[in-house]
């Protein structure tokens, strides 16, 4: 997508000119995606809240310098990823597996799920969730960006600051591992 015609970039530019409604529209569109990415990467609801707020704070502060050279979602995820890496470098302990499972399970399941196959589907989702959590951090990040945001390899490379082939390799390893877990 051309960043020059990215509607999100237009909204961001409008907010930089003082249009608060543009920011509200932008926030409504990306809040869930960003929050899930952070929660599934960090597996810590409190830390997720902090980084979520910090990410948007960075967006607000940088409104005057913003130039639509990339998709807004790519820029937003890049900010969140960098903040997350900074947090990991400070050796902040992440939530344990049980705590993360409880946190992720607190969210209500979609209403469309039927009771007859809810158990099997629940087991599959739980297995997928555990498999994602057990992936190395770099592989987990690229998987989340790919499955959650449906970003291309180049966009993931831009967000994570790595090369396209590195992203592709990490994604291939991660997918193989997830398929193995789901086939067991």
């Amino acid at each position, binding site marked *: *997508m*051309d*960043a020059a015609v990215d509607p999100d970039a237009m909204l961001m530019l409008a*907010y930089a000119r*003082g249009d*608060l409604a543009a*920011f*509200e529209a932008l*926030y409504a569109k990306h*809040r*869930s995606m960003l*929050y*899930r990415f952070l*929660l599934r990467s960090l597996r810590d609801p409190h830390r997720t*809240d902090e980084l*979520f*707020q910090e990410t*948007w*704070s*960075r967006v*607000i*502060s*940088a*409104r005057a*310098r*913003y*130039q*639509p*050279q*990339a998709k807004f979602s*790519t*820029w937003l995820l*890049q900010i969140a990823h960098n903040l997350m890496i900074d947090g990991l470098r400070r050796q902040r302990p992440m939530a344990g597996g049980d705590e993360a499972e409880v946190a*992720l*399970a*607190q*969210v209500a*399941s*979609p209403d469309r*799920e039927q009771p007859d196959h809810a158990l099997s*589907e629940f087991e*599959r*989702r739980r297995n*997928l*969730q555990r498999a994602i959590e057990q992936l190395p951090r770099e592989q987990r990040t690229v998987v989340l960006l790919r*499955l959650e945001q*449906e970003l*291309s*390899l*180049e*966009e993931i*490379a*831009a*967000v994570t600051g790595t090369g396209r082939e590195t992203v*592709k390799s990490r994604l*291939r390893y991660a*997918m193989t591992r*997830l*398929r193995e877990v*789901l086939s067991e």
Partner: protein
Amino acid sequence: MTTPLPPTDPSTRDDKLPGEAELAALYRQLPQNEPGPELDAAVLRAAAQALEGADDEPRVERRKGPREPGDWVHPKPLSGTSVEQFRSIESVVRTRRRRSPSWLIALGSAASLVLVAGLAWHMRESSPPRSAPVAQEEAAAVRTSAATDQASPAVAPLAAPPAPAVSPEPVARSAPPSADRQIAMRASAAKKLKQNDALQFAQRKAAARSVVTPPPIAELAATAPPAPPPPPAPPAPLQEVSANAVSGVADQAAAAPSAAKPMPAAASVATDEAARDKGTAQQPGDTPAQELDKIRRLFDQGQRDQALPRLRAFRQAHPQWPLPPALQAQLQEP
């Protein structure tokens, strides 16, 4: 803050990996977590506050690394500054403005003084020094010349021409002459020196004709047509000659002031005169025979006024020394 735009050509977009579609479908069935309403309210409030405070508060942007181009703290607007703050800021600015010129002025003054002193030293070095004896001699010569003018009208034709040129000089010496005047004076002095040289040449010819008794200069001047000034004393040995000149030789001293000044145009003539007089000047280490020889040469050159006192002094110093007959005859003349 922005990232480079990835390639947007569809042909270059990566294909789905094997089994990715199934994993993506299952992933979408995972719990769809949402941020809490408090979180939403906090973010939206921060966005609104940022817009409201944009006009009032200085925007200090966070910086983790070193300063980047364009990462500036914007100045606070004047509307948000109180009168006292503005006055204090202005006083600080004024103090800084006052401080910087003060040392600049001091430095400039010192540099100017050094420059002026250097120029003065250079000019003093370039101009030949005027010794006190020369000045005294010149003053005495002027006085003597004036006295001679009043006393003997016979000498007047000879002494008169230099007088107008000489008389303004003491006045001019008291105050430094202007550049134009100096140039004019040097030109006239050079002209005068050439005339004196011609006259001296004529005198030498006459002295050669009458070897023993050269005619006095006053007589020569009386017979000579319109009276060029007598030959000037050369500049270099002036100090040596001054001892003799001050002793009372009026016509010689009357010409000395005009020649005592530095005259670059007549430099070669002055050099010749100096070389000539060096052979007859009285030296402290001269033997009696050398002194007698110099006196004899002075008589030959027609400088009887210098030779005769030296001969008398020699006679007094060496009464037993046998004098040549020519010098003996000079000594016996009145």
